[in-house]
């Protein structure tokens, strides 16, 4: 419900509730400053919030003072405002006759944890829009900004897109305060830095750049800060906006940042020396630099026993291959290289295709497109209907089309295998890239057979080899080969074996642990509190 109270403590800069990013001050100019006259201020704010019916102006009196409280109803926590600001003001100061200074109020009266003074007109407006209450006093040209932000937001729930059997069940929400809190709960270290940005001319979205300052590569952090500073846009509604502005190669089908709703994933990646970007208003947190191989690593790999984790990881690699190549290979083999199939299998395929009117490529395109459409329909429909529709659709269309002799049964098998395979990729944005690329592969296969697939793959690899994610080669680990990183690419070694952090991301301070294999001699017993 309420924003997390640890919200600003981590900031290296002065706390800034308005989220105004830059310390560079505009030149002092009269129209920009608040007046000492309450009346003048009041008019000014009423002009600014003209036709904003949700902005509340509440006039209060204590002693001889007149004060004005401005806030937006839906964004503040009403009881908090009442208990910690209004009540003390009205009750404690009822009998006061002395002049009340802003300092008095801040230090003695108001029982809120965060109170700020602001002199600038625009900043105070921003503060109100950000969910603070503003207290204006007659005779003072400072506005007191009371942090009582609240309002209704979704609570912490299990992450929907990244379900896991074993592992933390909490997921990020739309509230950046909650999100950063979830991360702080995991990493209790002063080295976790959260640098704040406000991006978007109208939305003024809070964006936090998080990293471990003792692990991350300073050059990368510098670079990403620069890129974040350079964004000019009217609004940021999702982290994807940020992603598209700061990625290295905009014309690439492959995502160069990873997103997640899981705090544990963010924590794990931060501890490897990467950075994360939190964006207010979305549960999806961006992370970079990443490598291609990360799309095949699920957080659960690290929580399950490593034998099964390894098996599953290799299963995924096999299925990625299937997702990308299976339809293309089917086309290439049935129309070019019939000698690749064992004779008995070939005759079965030939029998099944005997009455099919379409060439293999057309058949494949029809089925793949139908499959993509079914999936899209399944996602958009309400959850309960969606699954039924997609399963029924696939069954009916597959079965009926085969019996009518319009598509062949092997093709249906191929398409469903491909579909299943693309779902085994844990990272959705990686899966999309693979799904998309199988269509050009199919075209190449139908034009040149396996040679076409090889050419397509080569063009793809040239692209991948040249791609970088924040300076880290995309295929890092395999090309360029880094033996220590293979421990998390080809296999997942047990935790006590992964002594070093991956060298691509973490330049200094690479040692993760002493790396003692569990055994009776290695019990040091230093963890007891």
């Amino acid at each position, binding site marked *: 419900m309420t924003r997390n109270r640890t919200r600003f403590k981590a900031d290296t800069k002065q706390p800034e509730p308005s989220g105004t990013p830059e310390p560079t001050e505009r030149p002092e100019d009269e129209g920009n400053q608040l007046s000492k006259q309450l009346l003048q201020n009041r008019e000014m704010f009423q002009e600014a919030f003209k036709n904003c019916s949700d902005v509340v102006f509440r006039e209060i009196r204590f002693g001889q003072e007149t004060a004005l409280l401005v806030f937006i109803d839906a964004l503040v926590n009403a009881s908090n405002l009442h208990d910690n600001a209004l009540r003390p003001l009205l009750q404690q100061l009822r009998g006061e006759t002395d002049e009340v200074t802003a300092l008095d109020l801040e230090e003695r009266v108001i029982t809120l944890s965060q109170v700020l003074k602001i002199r600038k007109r625009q900043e105070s407006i921003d503060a109100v829009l950000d969910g603070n209450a503003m207290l204006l006093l007659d005779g003072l040209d400072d506005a007191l900004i009371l942090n009582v932000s609240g309002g209704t937001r979704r609570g912490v729930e299990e992450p929907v897109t990244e379900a896991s059997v074993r592992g933390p069940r909490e997921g990020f929400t739309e509230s950046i305060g909650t999100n950063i809190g979830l991360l702080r709960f995991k990493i209790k270290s002063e080295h976790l830095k959260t640098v704040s940005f406000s991006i978007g001319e109208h939305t003024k979205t809070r964006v936090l750049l998080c990293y471990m300052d003792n692990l991350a590569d300073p050059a990368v952090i510098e670079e990403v800060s620069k890129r974040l500073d350079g964004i000019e846009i009217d609004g940021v509604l999702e982290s994807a906006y940020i992603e598209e502005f700061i990625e290295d190669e905009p*014309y690439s089908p492959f995502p160069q940042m990873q997103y997640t709703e899981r705090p544990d994933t963010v924590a794990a990646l931060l501890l490897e020396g990467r950075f994360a970007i939190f964006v207010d208003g979305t549960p999806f947190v961006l992370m970079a630099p990443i490598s291609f191989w990360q799309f095949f690593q699920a957080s659960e790999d690290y929580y399950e026993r490593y034998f099964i984790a390894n098996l599953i990881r290799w299963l995924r690699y096999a299925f990625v291959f299937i997702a990308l190549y299976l339809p293309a290979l089917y086309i290439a083999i*049935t*129309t*070019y290289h*019939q*000698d690749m199939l064992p*004779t*008995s299998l*070939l*005759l*079965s*395929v*030939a*029998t*099944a*295709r*005997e*009455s*099919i009117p379409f*060439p*293999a490529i057309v058949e494949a395109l029809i089925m793949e497109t139908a499959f993509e459409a079914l999936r899209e329909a399944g996602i958009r429909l309400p959850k309960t209907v969606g699954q039924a529709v997609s399963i029924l659709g696939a069954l009916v269309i597959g079965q009926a089309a*085969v*019996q009518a*002799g319009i598509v*062949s*049964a092997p093709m249906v098998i191929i398409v469903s295998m491909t579909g299943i395979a693309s779902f085994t990729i844990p990272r959705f944005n990686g899966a999309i890239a693979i799904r998309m690329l199988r269509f050009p592969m199919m*075209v*190449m296969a*139908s*034009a*040149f*057979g396996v040679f*076409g697939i090889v050419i397509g793959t080569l063009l793809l690899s040239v692209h991948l080899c040249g791609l970088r994610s924040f300076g880290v080669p995309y295929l890092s680990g395999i090309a360029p080969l880094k033996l220590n990183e293979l421990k998390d690419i080809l296999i997942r070694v047990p935790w006590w074996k992964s002594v070093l952090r991956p060298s691509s991301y973490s330049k200094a301070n690479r040692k993760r642990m002493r790396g003692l294999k569990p055994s009776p001699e290695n019990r040091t017993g230093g963890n007891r509190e």
Partner: protein
Amino acid sequence: MKWKSLLLGGLLMVPVVLSGCWDRREINDVAFVLASGFDKEKDQYRVSVQVPLPSQLGGIGGSGGGGGTSGDKSWYVESMTGSTIREANEKQQRSLSRQLYFAHRRVLLIGDEAAREGVKEYLDILARVPQNRLGTFVLITKGETRDVMNAEESIEQTPAEMMRELAQNTMRKPRTAKHFIETLLSDGIDPYAPAIQVVKTQSGSGKEKTTIKVIGLAVFSKGKLQGILNPEESQGALIAMNQAVQPMINLPAPKGEGQLSILLGETNVNIKPALEGDKIKMRIVVRGKGSLIENTSAYDVTAGHNMEDTEKRLDESLKQSLQKSIDMLRMKLHADPIGFGDIVYRKFPNEWQTMKKDWQSHYEVMQVEIIPEIHIVHTGAITQPFGYKEGDLKQ
């Protein structure tokens, strides 16, 4: 810059992809040749191909398919003559709406008449067109090849598949076209291939159909078929080549009436050449393990020294069988499929150079010593024969 190059590449690709597909052939526009057969008709080659009919093979999509040409058969044999094999194939193509495709040829048949005139001319097409594979089996047919291809009763989907399985079962390490060609090109070793024939089934139901049977081993020399060994001679030759698949040997029971059948589960042949002056001496050691699989006599192999005695008789029988086969090969057929010459060549390359020219004479007179060392390891699940009372057993 990046865009431009991508665009350029893209534009370059467009015509290539659009006009591509030169080699594209849909699977239902291809006639997969499963077997082809070569015969000679005067100076012309008669080439027969066997093509499966997918619409007759059954399956979901098959019901709506086009009609077959030969009733309920799931294959089709086409035969043509031509002055080269390719020409005959082209002629066949003219009457086939589907393109002949040779990559799935399982067996290559050569008629015995044609093979007697020489097989060299048939081997070029085995490798020149990359569709063809050296993993094909070469088989010699007694009679015309198309008769064998048209065998009515095959236990597999097509006769071609049946012939392949038969060929594969004749040898421990099945000899494909690769080995056939290799032996043809080498000195001191001659090619051999299983020989098959079409025969009537003996089902006894009155309706007799034709089927395919392995009749022995066809033996070549100087690229020509010299003769076909009968099954007994073939077995001896195969044992000597280390190629026999679990050969069975029948022994007359040492005591009493009846036979003992002994299966040689493992045989291992070691041929050692020795040079004595300019004479070659071959020493063939056959080691093996056998088991008694049938005993129709009252002879009790378990009693006394009967096991050792049986082994001795077995060795003697094996020795004679091998001797007979080898003598048949060198005296009558003048062929060396076992590769005695090759063994000499690998062992004594320098002497071989002089011996090579008149190898045939050396081959025919060289001393061959056969030393079988067969060990009977068990007698199956029973010891004494089942059908005889205690007193009737011959100890």
